[in-house]
Every structure is written in structure tokens, then in C-alpha cells.
């Protein structure tokens, strides 16, 4: 007998218009890619570079699509059941825990695997064009993508089993996936091939914290072991494996030969982590999953004098203190947004700002040390990528639920019954996001200060990079908020917001990979103009981007997109506040 969960979830999902639209869009995009590269002048490319370019663009495109689509469904699969009360029915039904687990896993990973399978005809064209190995490149590429799909689906399911809301699950899953995919590249990018050099320098000085840390790590792993560790950390995400298979394994190696083996390492990590997550999930999916106590709402103000004193010493900002009333000049919607957000309370904000400050100082410290071996533009690039990543991760997470979450929870209707105007609502909601983003970004500024001290001539460049950041923050926030006002469900709005932001920051880099064979320079420059990261890197004169003039064009595009998104948001909010 077929597993009813698979029947209900996977088959049910495949019948939806949204699933059909995703399949059609993916196939259309891939077909367009083949048409763009297919030779039309009867001149065959004998060295196979055309096929290799197609494979790389296709591989990265599929990887980005996978990162965006894979968590979308499983991230809400369990939490939504819990919210709707159907999880208890499932756990107390005749289905065994194993069947429930298998059903959820197959339903979660099935759709993404189907999408990957749909791309096979395009992959075959790479073989037909010649120059691409079936067993050496194509099959391993599909293996990597398949493993990544299953790994991300499991991660999303696991997060879903802990989350309290669908949009919260979505945010955390995307955050973790983007973090694991991108942040794990940073240590390798920073230190590959320089461990020995840094250790030598550490032997001479032996004073600062990083050097001490290096010496400790050297004691444990040895110099070669440290390099291996960096390579394993780098292989946590699928990007290095795909880079290796598409022939870009040396990118980011700064001229130092890469050791290879990224595919093997990713395979091992993906298999082990997936198996671990399945075991973890099987423990979570028990009736005790619902066994949670309700908060009794204890506040510090209710404690005796001694208890209050202890907590005053324990916390700078006490999480359990009774909050004050909303001030007369404060936008109540903004305060409500901060209070409702899982990490919006002042004690959480203080923790997050502290974390960013520490991260920024660590980066600054690394930068200072790394100036021995790196050019200043590389340091700027690292800071820019860190900040861009932070914005791309946080802006949709903070903004995608602004309106949709309110509509979904029934709070919007209550707000409509108050004298709050649409403008007050929009301003309050956006202000809550802008304040959070600004505080976090300001906390990362010390890194730039170090850069300015090292090389004073780059002041104007740094200002331009900061303008790019601010514009990205504004555009990403407004676009995500506009998505939030269009979609009725927060989960759908979150996916749309991440797709929009990641498309702008990552997908627009794909033509850059195909410059010279698939796309001409003017075309690549036009596409890169949309990308604020590429703009920041070109402003910093980072090799590979320094030849493009993107700054003015990008600012216009970002500005125009922000205005358009603000108009959509205002119009939709006005519509939502009108009587139906």
C-alpha cells in the first residue's frame, strides 16, 4: 500500500499550479540557455569550450535554483501541520513513526529531485556538443546536486520540527543554507596557502590572539593538517564541488594550486550529515514533539528584592523585565514589530549587535594580519561580501512577513479597526527593519576603518561601497516588503523575497562566467549592473571585476527598483486597509 503522506503531500503538491509553474519556468530557462549557446553558423567548436561554458552556467544555475527551491516546501511541512492541528492526528494515526518519516522525507526531497531530473535533456546537450565527460563531469555533477537537494530538504524538515511558525522556519532554513553554502568558503579563501607563512610570522611575534590560536591548531593538526581542515570546511557546501566539476576549482585560490577532491569531501559530508539529520528527525517525530509547557509569563518585577538584584547583576538588559508603555512620539506599529519578532527585543538586539561587532573586529584583525600577504582590495572584498551576505540574509527575513504575517495571523483586521493610517502602518513596519539592519551594519564598520588606516587612498572607494550597501539594504527591504504585501502567506512571501534578492545578488553573476563564449562583454556588463555585489567589487578594483564600470548604472537601477517596490507596497497596503 502506498504511503498516504507521499500521496497527500508530494502528489498533492505536484498537482498545484505553483508546482507546474516552477517546472515550466525552470525548463524554459534551461532551454533558453541551450539556444543561446547552440552554434548557428555551422562552425563547430572543436576544443569543447562552448560545451564547458554551457555546463558551468547550467551547473551554477541549477545549484542556485536548488538552493532557492529545496527548502521552500519542507521548511513548513511539519510546523504547518502543528499549527493546523493535523500533526497530532498524524502522530496518533495507525502510521508507524518510520512511515511518517519516510513519507515526509520523500515528499520533501521528491519535488526537488524531480526538478533536477527535468534538467537532464539540457545536460545531454553538453555531451552532444562534445568536450564534456559523462562519467568525469556530468554524472558527478548530478550526484552532487542530488545529495545537496536531499541534505537541504532534511535540514529544512529538521528546522520545521523545532519552529513555532512557518515563516520563522523558512527564515532560519534559508539563513542556515546560505550560511553553510557561502560562509564556509571564507576561511579557505582567506588562508589557503598562507598557513605556513602566518605560522612563521606567529613564531616571530607570538603575541596576538589569532597567532596563538594558529599555534594551538598547528599543535593539533600540524601545518598540512590545517590546510586539510580548511579544505574540509570549504567542502561543507556544494559550491566548491560544482566549481571543481565545471573547471573553476582554482577560482579564489589566488594563484595557488587547489588540491582537488572537493566532490569527494562534499559527498562524504553530505552523506554523514543527511544520515545524522534523519536519525535526529526520527527522534523528533514522536508524540512527545507536542509536549511543550506553556510559559507562565514570569517577570523580574514579580521577584523579591534579592531575586531582582541577582538578575540586575546577571543581565545588562533583562529579558524578563516588564517593558514600558509605548511612548507618545513613537510609532506603535514599529514597537509592536520589535516586540513580536523572535529576536527583536532589546536584549536580543544587543546580543546581535555585539555578535556583529565581534565578527567585524575579528575580520579587522584577520585583515590586519593578512595585509602581509593580501592586497587591500581583497580585504575590502571580504568585508563587502560579509556585509552583502548579511543584508541578503536578513532583509528578506525581516521584511517578508511584515504584511503577510499580519494578514495570516488575523492581526491585520484588528489593525484595520484602529485609526492607524496606511502610511503609519507602512512607516512603522519599514522603520523596524531599517533600524535593525542599520544597527547591524554599523556594527560591521570597524573593518572598513582598519582598511582606511592601512591604505588612506581608498577612502572614496569605501564610501562608494557603503553607498552600494545602503542601496542594497533599502532595495532588498522594500522588495521583500512588497512581496509580503502581494502574497497572503508569509512562507510564500519569504520564498519570493529570497528568490528576488538572491537572483539579483547571485544569478546575475552567471553571465559573467560565460563571458567571451556565450555572452559578449557589453551584455555581461549590462547584467552585472543589476548586481550590487559586483558593483561593490568593481568599485574596489577586485581582479575580475575591475574592468567593468557599474557604479552609476547600479545606483540608478537600485533606486528605481526601490521606488517601484515602495509604490507597490503603499498601493497594496492601501488596498488592504480599504473595506472589501
Amino acid at each position, binding site marked *: 500500500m502506498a504511503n498516504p503522506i507521499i500521496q497527500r503531500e508530494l502528489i498533492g503538491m505536484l498537482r498545484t499550479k505553483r508546482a507546474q509553474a516552477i517546472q515550466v519556468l525552470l525548463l524554459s530557462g534551461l532551454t533558453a540557455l541551450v539556444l543561446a549557446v547552440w552554434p548557428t553558423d555551422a562552425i563547430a567548436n572543436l576544443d569543447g569550450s562552448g560545451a564547458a561554458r554551457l555546463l558551468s552556467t547550467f551547473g551554477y544555475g541549477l545549484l542556485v535554483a536548488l538552493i532557492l527551491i529545496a527548502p521552500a516546501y519542507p521548511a513548513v511541512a511539519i510546523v504547518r501541520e502543528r499549527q493546523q492541528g493535523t500533526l497530532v492526528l498524524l502522530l496518533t494515526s495507525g502510521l508507524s513513526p518510520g512511515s511518517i518519516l519516510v513519507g515526509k522525507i520523500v515528499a520533501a526531497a521528491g519535488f526537488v529531485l524531480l526538478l533536477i531530473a527535468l534538467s537532464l535533456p539540457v545536460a545531454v546537450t553538453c555531451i552532444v556538443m562534445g568536450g564534456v565527460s559523462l562519467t568525469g563531469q556530468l554524472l558527478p555533477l548530478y550526484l552532487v546536486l542530488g545529495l545537496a537537494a536531499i541534505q537541504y530538504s532534511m535540514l529544512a524538515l529538521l528546522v520545521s520540527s523545532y519552529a*513555532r*511558525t512557518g515563516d520563522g522556519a523558512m527564515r532560519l532554513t534559508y539563513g542556515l543554507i546560505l550560511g553553510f553554502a557561502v560562509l564556509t568558503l571564507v576561511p579557505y579563501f582567506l588562508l589557503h596557502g598562507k598557513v605556513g607563512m602566518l605560522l612563521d610570522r606567529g613564531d616571530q611575534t607570538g603575541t596576538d590572539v589569532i597567532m596563538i590560536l594558529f599555534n594551538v591548531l598547528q599543535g593539533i593538526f600540524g601545518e598540512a593538517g590545517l590546510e586539510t581542515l580548511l579544505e574540509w570546511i570549504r567542502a561543507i557546501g556544494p559550491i566548491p564541488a560544482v566549481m571543481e566539476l565545471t573547471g573553476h576549482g582554482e577560482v579564489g585560490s589566488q594563484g595557488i594550486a587547489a588540491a582537488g577532491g572537493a566532490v569527494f569531501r562534499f559527498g562524504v559530508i553530505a552523506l554523514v550529515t543527511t544520515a545524522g539529520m534523519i536519525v535526529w528527525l526520527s527522534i523528533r517525530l514522536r508524540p512527545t514533539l507536542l509536549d511543550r509547557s*506553556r*510559559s*507562565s*509569563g*514570569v*517577570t523580574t518585577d*514579580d521577584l523579591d528584592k534579592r531575586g531582582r538584584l541577582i538578575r540586575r547583576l546577571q543581565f545588562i538588559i533583562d529579558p524578563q523585565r*516588564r*517593558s514600558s*508603555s*509605548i*511612548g*507618545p512620539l*513613537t510609532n*506603535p*506599529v514599529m*514597537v*509592536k514589530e520589535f*516586540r*513580536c*519578532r*523572535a529576536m*527583536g*527585543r532589546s536584549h536580543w538586539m544587543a546580543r546581535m549587535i555585539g555578535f556583529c561587532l565581534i565578527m567585524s573586529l575579528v575580520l579587522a584583525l584577520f585583515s590586519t594580519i593578512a595585509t602581509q600577504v593580501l592586497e587591500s582590495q581583497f580585504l575590502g572584498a571580504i568585508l563587502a561580501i560579509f556585509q552583502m551576505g548579511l543584508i541578503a540574509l536578513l532583509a528578506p527575513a525581516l521584511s517578508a512577513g511584515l504584511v503577510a504575517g499580519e494578514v495570516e*495571523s*488575523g*492581526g491585520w*483586521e*484588528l*489593525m*484595520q*479597526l*484602529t*485609526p*492607524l493610517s496606511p502610511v503609519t502602518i507602512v512607516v512603522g513596519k519599514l522603520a523596524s527593519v531599517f533600524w535593525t539592519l542599520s544597527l547591524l551594519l554599523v556594527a560591521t564598520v570597524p573593518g572598513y576603518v582598519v582598511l582606511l588606516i592601512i591604505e588612506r587612498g581608498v577612502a572614496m572607494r569605501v564610501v562608494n561601497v557603503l553607498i552600494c550597501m545602503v542601496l542594497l539594504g533599502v532595495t532588498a527591504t522594500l522588495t521583500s516588503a512588497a512581496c509580503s504585501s502581494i502574497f497572503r502567506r508569509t512562507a510564500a512571501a519569504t520564498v519570493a523575497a529570497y528568490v528576488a534578492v538572491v537572483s539579483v545578488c547571485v544569478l546575475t553573476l552567471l553571465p559573467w562566467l560565460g563571458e567571451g563564449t556565450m555572452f559578449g562583454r557589453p551584455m555581461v556588463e549590462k547584467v552585472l549592473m543589476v548586481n550590487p555585489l559586483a558593483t561593490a567589487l568593481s568599485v574596489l578594483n577586485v581582479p575580475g571585476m575591475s574592468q567593468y564600470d557599474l557604479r552609476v548604472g547600479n545606483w540608478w537601477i537600485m533606486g528605481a527598483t526601490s521606488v517601484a517596490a515602495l509604490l507597490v507596497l503603499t498601493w497594496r497596503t492601501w488596498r488592504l486597509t480599504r*473595506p*472589501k
Partner: protein
Amino acid sequence: MTQSDDQVLVKTVKLTKRFGDFVALNALDLELRRKQILGFIGPNGAGKTTTIRILVGLSRPTSGEAFVADCDCTQDSKRLKRLIGYLPDTFGSYDNMRVREYLDFFGAAFKMPRKRRVARIEEVMELTDSGWMRDRYVETLSHGMKQKVGIARTLLHDPPVLILDEPANGLDPKARIEMRDLLLRLADMGKTLIVTSHILSELSRICDVVSIITHGEQRAFGTLDEINRLVSGPRLIELTLADGTEIEAATRLINEMFGPNAEVQASAQEAQVRFTAEADDAKLSGLLTSAVKQGLRVAQLHEVPVDLEDAFLQVTGGVAADDSPSRKAN
């Protein structure tokens, strides 16, 4: 009743709402005075929520008019918001928010000055007996607690009219009694209430006026007595004897006086005879005299009142919830 109690606070005139071909509400006329409690009754999908949403300004009528304290519900939404406190059937919860913060937000949204807001929050929490949960997170509250907090929220800006959609739904018996007492207290305080409920026995205890609505049409409107008179038709009379052995003689007498249509139901064990009759009080007096003359020991003779549930079933013709046919506009 004072002069101000006669003031009409809620009024609808030929209120109609269509969604395409579907008629959700057809020419509804309502009138509600100060301090009155209106029980708005109807099966699911009858048009109750549609009416309420028009009254609170969340929906526009296709035709007709609706007024709350002389404020046109379709024209002056700004004023309307201060006149009405609305408790929808869904709570509208916010995550990570304590009850006091939740009320503080809505108070601030109504632009209440901080000092007055703080005092008012204490007042409404005391009134709704929700003060003890002020530091609880709203999403962790039970259904009954949420209803209390919801009513506290509707009272914050001290509106003259309260519209409560299914306030007693899902509450346990004790909570239902508390809710009933609270609604009566609010009416005593001068509030005008519109309450929808499926628990008709609850409504019959607190309502001054009842409106029964099905398929978007108002079937009955008036006080409970008026509704009873409207729906009663033949009266149900109950005769109780001191001894069950006299039942046969009593049945014979009733059949002689009221004919075979009297639908007599006799129970020797309970020593009771029930029958229906179009009789006036003089004829019933005659029955009592004849019974005493025949030596029957009559303990009681009285009319069984039609309760709201019976009235509702009679008016709606026993229409079950959600089985209404689709309504097409003419």
C-alpha cells in the same frame, strides 16, 4: 427607561451584499437601542458575519445603509472606529507579546495618551477578570483566556457599541457563565451589544432583542416574547395531576374539549398530559373548571414556553448548518 436609552444606536436599512451572483445578505433591517443586547442568530453561512463586517467598516454593502450612533458605516470609517469595539471569531494573536503589551499596542493605536492608557488597561483587565494574565504571552493563552483578552481589547477605547462574534464558542460551562455575566455587566454599563452565537440557550438568557437570519434573509426580529408569539402557532399546554391514575380521565376530557387535533401526549408515570391547542385563556379556564368538577386533582395547568432553540428551528424550518443552497440574485 430614560430618554437616552431610547436612542437608536445601530440601524440598518435594506442592507444588501452580493458577491457576484451570490446574495450574502438581502435587505436586512435592524434597529438597536442603547443598552440593548441583540442576539444575532443563524446557521453557518447565513450572513451574520457579512452584516457584522459591514457594520464595523471592513466590508461595503452592495446597497442599503448602515449606521452606528448616526455615523454612516460606509462613509465615515474614521469616526466609526471609535464607536465600535469588535471581537472577531479569530483572536488575531501576535507572537512573543505579553497580554499587557498587546493591549498597550492597541491603546497606542487608538492614540490614547500614555497615562490614560496605562490606567485604562488596568480597568479593562479588571473588568474582564484578566489582570492575573497580564504577563502571559498571548499565543500561550487558552481559548477562554483569549476571549477575555479580546473583549478587554474591544473595551480599551470605551466604544458605545460592542460587536462580538461567537464570544462563547468553545468555552467550558464555567467560562460561559462568566462570559454571560460579563456581557450583562457591559450592558448595565451602557454598552450596546451585538452578539452572535450558536449556543441559543446562552443568548436567550441575556438578549433583549433577537434577529434570526438564514440564507441572507431576516426571518424574525424582535424581543424574545415577540419572537415567541410570532413562531408559537398552536400553544403547548401542560396539565399536571396529583395522581397518575387519573391520566385516562384527563385525556378523555381534553379530547372532548379540543378535538382530535390536540396531539395529546400522556405520561402516567409523570402524571402529565401535554397537548397543543389554538385555545385562548377562557377556554383553558373552562378546561380547569371541568377537570375540578370531574374530581381530577389538578396540580398545575400551564403553557410551556417556546425557547429560543425551538423558535430558531421553527423559523429556519430546521435548516442545518452549511446545507443552505446557493443563493442567486434575481
